[in-house]
């Protein structure tokens, strides 16, 4: 009888551990298929570096947005933030400001955008989905207004380096940023006191408040950092394309949120991991890249992307139901 019971326990654990592991297995499978079917181009420098750059800039934003989503909130304004950041960067460079100063101003503006979201959500109490859909339009609208809807060249040694530079001549700088941001968010989420508060809030905000956790502060800071990181993403994108235009980052919020959900984060909060998000970002990026080099029409790519998202999240749900059945 006892043996039976223990078998049940170990099975349940098995399930849990494997959620992220399964994602990485899928990813590995995709790599193998992509490198075989897409050979020799897939593993060429010409393909990998743009893919990694692209992936890095999405990943940086996704990692921080995961923190916001685990608290049970969401930020749709990241795409608009990226658009406005790109415009602002180009305009400031046009004025002749030094590159480093532009970076500082842009990141501060990003933080301010995040803080605004945080205020509307935590102080006024607007649902974060609504608040940030609102600011998504506002940020992009400001971008259009500032640039008159035009693209502006953004060239400057500092800015160029952010997206196209190499550390030690071989490692693309965006991937360094990715590694740094993921390491920090990983430690914060899974090993720090702050991270504990984030999970507690996502799991039960009222009980967290009644246990003396400053729920609003944690959420507010999450939004603030998310805004700042989105601006960092905007800087990378501006650098990669060498232009600032208000269309930058359009639709990206959905791609990024998809990767996070793909990685196992739950809308409503309390559940989600940084490694899962990393896997989610990789899966979608590799998929995109693979479909592109296979010359799959863009229209179909959209269908595939949506299908994959629903498929993977469906398996999460089915597993949940199976566990529930069992218990």
């Amino acid at each position, binding site marked *: *009888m006892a043996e*039976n*019971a*223990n078998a*049940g*326990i170990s*099975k*349940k654990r098995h399930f849990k551990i494997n959620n992220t592991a399964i994602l990485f297995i899928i990813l590995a499978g995709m790599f193998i298929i992509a490198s075989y079917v897409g050979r020799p181009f897939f593993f060429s420098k010409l393909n990998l570096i743009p893919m990694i750059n692209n992936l890095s800039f999405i990943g940086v934003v996704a990692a921080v947005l995961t923190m916001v989503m685990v608290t049970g909130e969401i930020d749709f304004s990241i795409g608009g933030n990226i658009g406005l950041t790109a415009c602002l960067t180009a305009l400031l460079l046009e004025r002749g400001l030094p590159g480093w100063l532009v970076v500082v101003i842009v990141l501060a503006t990003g933080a301010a955008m995040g803080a605004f979201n945080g205020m509307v959500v935590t102080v006024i109490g607007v649902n974060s989905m609504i608040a940030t859909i609102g600011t998504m339009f506002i940020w992009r609208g400001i971008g259009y207004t500032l640039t008159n809807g035009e693209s502006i060249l953004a060239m400057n040694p500092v800015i160029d380096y952010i997206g196209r530079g190499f550390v030690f001549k071989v490692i693309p700088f965006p991937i360094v940023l990715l590694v740094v941001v993921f390491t920090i968010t990983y*430690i914060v989420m899974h*090993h*720090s*006191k*702050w*991270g*504990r*508060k984030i*999970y*507690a809030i996502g*799991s*039960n905000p*009222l*009980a*967290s*408040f*009644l*246990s*003396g*956790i*400053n729920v609003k502060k944690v959420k507010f800071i999450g939004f603030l950092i998310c805004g700042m990181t989105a601006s960092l993403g905007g800087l990378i994108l501006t650098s990669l394309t060498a232009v600032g235009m208000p269309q930058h980052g359009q639709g990206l919020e959905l791609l990024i949120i998809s990767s996070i959900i793909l990685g196992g984060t739950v809308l409503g909060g*309390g*559940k989600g991991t940084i490694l899962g998000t990393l896997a989610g970002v990789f899966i979608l990026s590799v998929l995109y890249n693979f479909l592109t080099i296979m010359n799959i029409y863009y229209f179909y790519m959209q269908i595939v992307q949506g299908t994959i998202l629903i498929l993977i999240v469906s398996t999460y749900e089915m597993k949940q139901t199976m566990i529930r*059945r*069992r*218990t």
Partner: protein
Amino acid sequence: MSNSNGIVLKMENITKTFPGVRALDNVSIDLHKGEVLGILGENGAGKSTLIKILAGNYIKDSGHIYIDGKELDIKGPAEAMVSGIRVIYQELNTIDNLTVTENIFVGEQIVKGPLKIVDWKAMTEQARALLDTLSVKLDPDAIVGDLSVSQKQVVEIAKAISKEAKIMVMDEPTAALSEEEIKSLFNIIKTLKKRGVSIIYISHRLKEVFEIVDRVIVLRDGKKVGVQKIQETDHGKLVALMVGRDIKDMYPKKEVEIGDMVMDVKNLSADGIDSISFELKKGEILGIFGLLGSGRTSLVKALFGANKIKSGQIFINGKRAVIKDPSTARDKRVGLVPLDRKAEGLALIMGVKENITLANIKDLGKSFLINRKKEKQRAEKWVDEVGIRTPSVDQEVNSLSGGNQQKVVLAKWLESGSQIIILNEPTRGIDVGAKIEIYRLIEDLCEKGSSIIMISSELPEILSIADRIITMNKGRFTGQYLRKEASEEKLLQKACL
């Protein structure tokens, strides 16, 4: 039992295993037509599991269920419903922004004409008729959100009998009811009995069991340990069966020396309370007695900083304490075991250890990082001291029984070093064995120098545990007694002033 035709429900050799526990072990019950069958048992005895299997929420591992002699394979709630099984859960499932009528007929609206337009008139009339058969006065057009808990319960009962109900299960139906409301619930149960409905009645309150139940089944650790006709048993026998040992003293009262004043509340006014003043001394258990809506929960919230204080002052250890939110309350070493532990006390999807350290995250390590080893040790220490029954400190709190969950909430405040612990109905929905353990814990805390404010609407409990009792009604204090002077009559009278 000689007349097998009279048996409406037979559950035979039901077994259900969860990871780590055998929740039900070969349990068999039978239920006769028009009978009220009580099911008693401690935390984790298997009562809820049994009911959930009957209702189709859980699938049994083995065993058979017969309704009217025919075997029924219950695979989900729908099959249970079709067979006339209705469950009134402790957590009510009414929809607050709909009317009584809408709630009764939710999903089953009466329609007329080829366009299937909702027939409001017919529905309201039927709702009224249903409420009449239950002999309750309730406006079918009232918005359910405006009703009291007991009225909501009536709505659920009306909904349950709106379609033919053979078996009605009531899980802890009186947990949130006042004495008056319990009486009217019992009248409803008697009416249902007369109409031939069989009732399974789950409760921890033995007094009620004796009042309403015909026969009682006692479960312990997933096994059926006794079936008794109610006339042939008594309080002591049942408790002994439930706990598996004789309980001489349901309310263990230790005499603890009461020390200096630790908390002094002066003319406190806030939402729902009006100029409340009291003192709390070291080692004292101060009981606050009031019925639902007396302002007792508002008082708790104001003391803990969860509700804004309009005027008045709180002094802790002689110093003015401005408690503006729960975090300052915690820093002043005040802890709160809230009314609804699942909604207000626990992060259910997190582990035991995360919950125990929830109010004391800052002490989880010297730097900004969590020292997991230390966390585990501290959690294990409390699990041990408080007596939380869990396979490990990593176990999700969700899977613990109510009593053990409550101990986790208490351990959380002990871990954060609380000296004044406010308990809002600490034994609500918890059964005898776990209750006694909680009382012991409270007494031990006082012995170690903590002070307790205990809000309770259970008279025997407050009369035996509290050193001093304050009665409350309409947001004001209406009386104060030392334990020796207090009686049920006095408290009830003052609480209804």
